[in-house]
């Protein structure tokens, strides 16, 4: 949940309800929007505009990462749960005949 975990902080901007960090490592540049309560990080890999995820802190040693329809829960850096929302078609209500 700490932006520094992703690399070196290159920029920091305060917004209305989040703080935006630009962080880079040897390969990628990350845009991290951290909520003011520091419980949620919305992370985007710049250059791959459609690749982003949201991390939500659950406790001091656990957080969940939401990528598209998949949610991964980490405990002490280990994956303990992977969840995927399945798509399905609803039953059809019968109308007037």
């Amino acid at each position: 949940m700490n932006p520094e975990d992703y690399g070196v902080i290159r920029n920091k901007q305060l917004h209305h309800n989040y703080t935006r960090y630009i962080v880079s490592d040897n390969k990628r540049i990350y845009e991290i929007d951290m909520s003011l309560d520091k419980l949620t990080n919305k992370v985007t890999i710049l250059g791959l505009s459609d690749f982003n995820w949201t991390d939500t802190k659950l406790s001091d040693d656990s957080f969940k990462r939401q990528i598209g329809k998949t949610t991964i829960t980490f405990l002490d850096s280990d994956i303990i749960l992977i969840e995927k929302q399945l798509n399905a078609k609803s039953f059809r209500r019968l109308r007037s005949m």
Partner: protein
Amino acid sequence: MLNHSEDFGVCSSLITDFVTFDIESIVINNNITSYLIIAYNGTNYIESFGLNQNELFTNFINQLLTFFTNDSNIITVYAHNLSGFDGILLLKHLLSYGKVKPLLFNGKLMSIKLKLNVEGHKNKTIIFKDSYQLLPLSLRKLCEAFNIQIGKGYFPFLLNDIFYKGVLPKLEYWTGITLKEYELFLKEYANITWNFRDESIKYCKLDCKCLFEILVHFNELIFKHFRVNIDYSLTLPALAMRIYKSQFMPKNTIYQLLGNIERDIRESYTGGAVDVYIPHNRITPWLSSNININYEKIKCYDVNSLYPTVMSTKSMPIGKPIAFQGDIRVVEQDAFGFFYCEITSPANLLHPILQRKINTVNGIRTIAGLGSWSAWITSSEMDNAMKFGYTFKIIKGYQFDKGDIFSKMVNKCYNLRLQYPKGHPMNNIAKLLMNSLYGKFGMKEEITIIEVLNNLNDIDKEIISNKLELYNNNITDIINLVDHILLIRKSFSYLAYNKKEDIFHGTEVNVAIASAITAEARIHMSLFKNNPDFKLYYSDTDSVVINKPLPESMVGNNLGQLKLEYTIKKAVFLAPKVYALITNEGKEIIKVKGLSHKVISKLNFLDLEAL
């Protein structure tokens, strides 16, 4: 929040234009030979009589065409037990009239659709349906239930001579008739010649009229209370589902479950627990020389409408499922759904409460035992089992939202049962509708397809040969019908892909709901297991046999309460659904699964006790 206020789908008018028909047959040289067909449209009869099968059926179908009116291009024709002999006998004679589409389900012929291709009736349709699938009682019982005054008649079915004329046939040729009723016939025909042809026509006409009146009455009752016509449904569960979907189903709550999720959750779908715990109630030792043999007084209680009870009071799995890997309960303590678990039972438990499926040489068997195993289970049943000392390690599963989706329909049907006295057809219909609905959710995706193939020349034979090769293992039966062949094969139901929404869709099935209902029913029944307040002798899906009376608060007529069925003097329970009882009133009750009523009627308590 569920939306119950969605506008209801209802029929604007009652459909009454249908036809009933019946076929009478005799056995000649071990072959079933039809000799009479009658149909009735509420006003007129048509009849066809004779032993020449081609002439008999052709004459009948030709006359049936006269029932088409200028207003309609479809005739619906009901036979009680079409799926028995009538449909099979009829099928091959329809082939020369147009395109025939039989519909088979669970090995039963449910309907035959005939799209006509004969001069003057091109593209008109006749649909033959089985009324027994809507009203699963004998015609005689239905006449009583619906209070049909004309009443079903009697006929000497064991008489084989259709040209017989003379004195009233002897009692031995009649079935299901009492001596008193036969004697009334004797008086009636004392000075009259009994004529097989006239009497069979009279009897068959009466059957057709009775069935017609019953269906009219049934349709009126269903329409009055649910604004649905029976004509749109082939079976009672289908009718229950139609009523549910048109009037009670909240919008966007129930989703189709197909493919892997369906197969996984189906593993958790088992029925009621039927088990013997104490095989008899004799107190006096078997080898004792004591002449006075003592038995413990025991009581048999039934739960009132067990499945409707849990449907209306327990949360059901709704919404789009979430598939997961890992122990979801570590993250969400109240996670609800279906879990694949490593299960360990307590080392000792008098009445094990979890069932598991075991593969045997005779197919899959369900048993409730102790030990360790892995299986799919509903979260509710898992939580309940933990109270009895079972432990679980969740490996993977499917999570659902919880919701109340049945209480309105169950309460409506239950109130109808209170509104109409016992014996009134609506009372029975409401009960059947309540109990029929859940199974429809658990239907398999697999369907049976019947292909009617020409078998006239070498090209036809080549096509048949190719089909046999193509479908190979999926073919369940091949029936030769003169110039045609019926190829019966298993197939998965229609599955389509919606690219925009990225989903597969097809049959409206949701085994999660069916499995949750049966699981909640087992949980309900687990109240009576391992209970120190009484000794449990035997349990069935919705009944228990125990040695003490239940508290008054548990007994009554409300949904979920129990009803004392019998106080039992003597009992012997040999296996699930194999038992003999003698009640306090001296009535002997014998049940042996797999044996017909006729065979069971020859057994007595001592026969089973001796085993």
